């Protein structure tokens, strides 16, 4: 009886272990092939250069992010102008553009982050 149970267990194990392993290895192969293809495409289209910088530039021109670029540029302009004025050192409140910068970076990141790792190995 015990022998029979052990045998049947062994059969069950064999029946799905190899198929699992096969499926995994096939998937891996597919992924590798895809990766290689992608790399080739990149080399042809883009050549050298950091994909991160390219994505950032690309994203900065998108209509919903343009708005933040504009705000940040405006702030930089305003603050630099203020810094050039007399008595800036003694001012009680000095504005900085961290908030605008954070908003811009946050939205840039939302655009860049999901796409970046497909371009890296």
């Amino acid at each position, binding site marked *: 009886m015990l022998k029979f149970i052990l045998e049947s267990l062994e059969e069950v194990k064999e029946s799905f272990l190899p198929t699992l392993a096969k499926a995994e290895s096939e998937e891996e192969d597919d992924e590798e092939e895809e990766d290689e293809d992608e790399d080739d495409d990149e080399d042809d289209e883009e050549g*050298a*250069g*950091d*994909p*991160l*910088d390219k994505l950032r530039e690309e994203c900065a021109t998108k209509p919903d992010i343009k708005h933040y670029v504009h705000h*940040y540029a405006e*702030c*930089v302009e305003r*603050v*630099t102008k*203020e*810094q050039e004025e007399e008595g800036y050192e003694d001012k009680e409140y*000095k*504005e*900085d*553009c*961290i*908030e*605008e*910068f*954070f908003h811009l*970076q*946050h939205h840039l*990141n*939302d655009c*860049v*982050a*999901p796409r*970046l*790792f497909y371009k*890296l*190995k």
Partner: protein
Amino acid sequence: MTAAEHGLHPPAYNWSHNGMFDTFDHASIRRGYQVYREVCAACHSLDRVAWRTLVGVSHSNSEVREMAEQFEYDDEPDDQGNPRKRAGKLADYIPGPYANEQAARAANQGAYPPDLSLIVKARHGACDYIFALLTGYPDDPPAGVSLPPGSNYNPYFPGGAIAMGRVLFDDLVEYEDGTPATTSQMAKDVTTFLNWASEPEHDERKRLGLKAIIVLSSLYLISIYVKKFKWAGIKTRKIRFNPPK
């Protein structure tokens, strides 16, 4: 606290080891070690990682032996009691760039480069934070920001003023597998390597988790079957009263 004091939140990147059943990209760990060795190791130690742990993970046994032999370690004193040195071996831990914290601070204008062995676990945002920090140095700090002397601006670092400058630049290292060494590629590799350093059990943990799920769920189903089987007779029995005639 202001947003600047909290630091900018890193975005979620799709790491190849994110999923429940996904393991580390070991080619990336190997490249990441190269980046650590050629770039980070100039200031940061990796105290808790022994050479032997790299074997079978990113390098072969003989490669790691060779790497360890390039460093000198204290040996037992000779018969006259004079201290001796010996070449490193697999059982040794990876040596840091400085003898102690004071030496590290003295060499870095008072800033102490943290040990990187557990850095991924030690920071909010883990991998995402490390990657964002390494690639997030802007060309110029936002207008109106005043930084203390000797510090650099990085939005992801709480407070924004970080003593470490931008270190990763395109083509800083030359990968042996021919991968283009862009800033983001190096940052990704070194972050994967550091993630492995903090969680060397990662791959095995996920494998065991999968095993546990399979075994426990099948045992659970068997127990349901056995219960139903054992109770079948009891649940379906009929109690009949035969009144005495």
